[in-house]
């Protein structure tokens, strides 16, 4: 069994070496694909960090009715905290409100007016993770419906714009990845098809000798997967080097590094191998029935 497996591997390798030009085309296209997908992964990871950061800055300020008793206000804060999509809430009582006012305006409002006119309020932070496009309007709406809420302030328009950019970027990322992957699968499919045609004699002989279908097919699958493995490994090395150079350039201007985490490396290899496996599998199923 092991000997047979070794033989099939050797056949796969042989195919690779025999058809250098078509193989080069396939490996090169996997390489390009993985460079693009790898870059997208890196960019995606870093924009994700950015959107998380931005989302942590989103806040909704809820002002309560001026005559609302403090106990009711606290209950309200709790109600708001339990709304879906709310990460946490910070209650601001009248005293804190005056302090914030003082900090912002440099003067105490109590210098002008005797009784404290500032209402109790609450700052609401929203969840950062999840949807492509985070929508705070349902939350705002729900808060507005609560008894005792006087006014809700938020940067809805700005958030909407940021979120729609993020959404568009993410969609673009997915669509372009899928298109590129589909093209590469097509190229692998064709490479294997050419190898199969070039090996018609061998295939026919193998069938006459008494080779099972699996035996005939496996070398072609191995060939395809090897192409994927080689292409994505080279792409990974190339990207790592590019990042290293890029980072050393960046470090001259700013103390920032772009990282490629180990997960991205394995994702790249897995995608590369998967692409080539699918391509060669489709080809083999089609041309070696």
């Amino acid at each position, binding site marked *: 069994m092991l000997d047979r497996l070794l033989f099939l591997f050797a056949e796969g390798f042989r195919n690779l070496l*025999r058809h250098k030009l078509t193989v080069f085309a396939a490996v090169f296209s996997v390489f390009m694909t993985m460079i693009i997908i790898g870059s997208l992964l890196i960019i995606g990871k870093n924009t994700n960090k950015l959107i998380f950061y931005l989302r942590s800055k989103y806040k909704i300020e809820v002002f309560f009715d001026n005559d609302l008793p403090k106990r009711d206000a606290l209950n309200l804060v709790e109600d708001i905290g339990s709304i879906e999509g709310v990460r946490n809430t910070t209650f601001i009582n009248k005293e804190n409100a005056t302090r914030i006012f003082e900090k912002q305006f440099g003067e105490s409002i109590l210098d002008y007016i005797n009784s404290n006119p500032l209402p109790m309020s609450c700052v609401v932070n929203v969840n950062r993770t999840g949807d492509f496009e985070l929508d705070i309007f349902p939350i705002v709406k729900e808060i507005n419906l609560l008894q005792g809420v006087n006014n809700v302030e938020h940067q809805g328009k700005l958030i909407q714009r940021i979120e729609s950019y993020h959404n568009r970027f993410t969609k673009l990322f997915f669509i372009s990845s899928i298109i590129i992957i589909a093209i590469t699968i097509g190229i692998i499919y064709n490479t294997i098809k050419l190898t199969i045609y070039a090996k018609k004699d061998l295939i026919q002989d193998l069938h*006459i*000798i*008494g080779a*099972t*279908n699996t035996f005939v097919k496996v070398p072609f699958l191995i060939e395809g997967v090897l192409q994927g493995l080689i292409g994505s490994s080279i792409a990974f090395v190339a990207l790592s080097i590019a990042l290293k150079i890029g980072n050393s350039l960046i470090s001259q201007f700013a103390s920032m590094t772009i990282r490629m985490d180990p997960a991205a490396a394995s994702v790249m290899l897995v995608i590369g191998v998967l692409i080539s496996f699918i391509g060669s599998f489709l080809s083999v199923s089609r041309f070696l029935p």
Partner: protein
Amino acid sequence: MENVTFSYEKGYGIKNVNFTIDDSEFTFLIGPTGSGKTTIMKLIYMSLFPQSGVVTTGKFSSDKIKKRKIPFLRRKIGMIFQDYHLLQDRNLYENIALPLYVVGTRHSDISERVEAVIDQVGLTGKEEHLPDELSGGEQQRACIARALVKEPEIILADEPTGNLDPITSFELLKLLESVNHEGTSVLMASHNYNLIKGRGHRIMEIQQGILRNN
């Protein structure tokens, strides 16, 4: 073969053919070109299936066999063709070793077996030669070696001497006879009656798809 009829979509084929080849029998199948010799061979190794009648090869019969099982039937058959069918990109040794890899022979046993059959067909020393670095007769010997290496129960030789000169053809026939002597049945198709007459073997004659003289 029992009452086997097969016709190609465009006509021709064989009609109502009946015969049996016993263990270790040497049988000639002669007939003019287009008479159906290759068709019979293909029916035996189940590359074709009869429209009526049953072909039984060893323990496999054409009406019952599952597609998956056909490779296992073929492992019991050694095929030799007029046009050799050697793989041009592999040397003699690799060509002959191929069936053993297909069958799953242990790597350590392969070289011994291959050397033995190469010796048997008299090609020792030419292991490294590519097919086009061998003469026609040598290529056909290589094919015999390739058929023999998996120790088949029957050898089907479809006009093995078709491309060879009379002397080489005769040597090849003697080689097949010696193989047969060791217990392997041989079915050899030929249209060269001169070559096979007087060898003391059974001769079946086919004409236009009908077995004339059995």
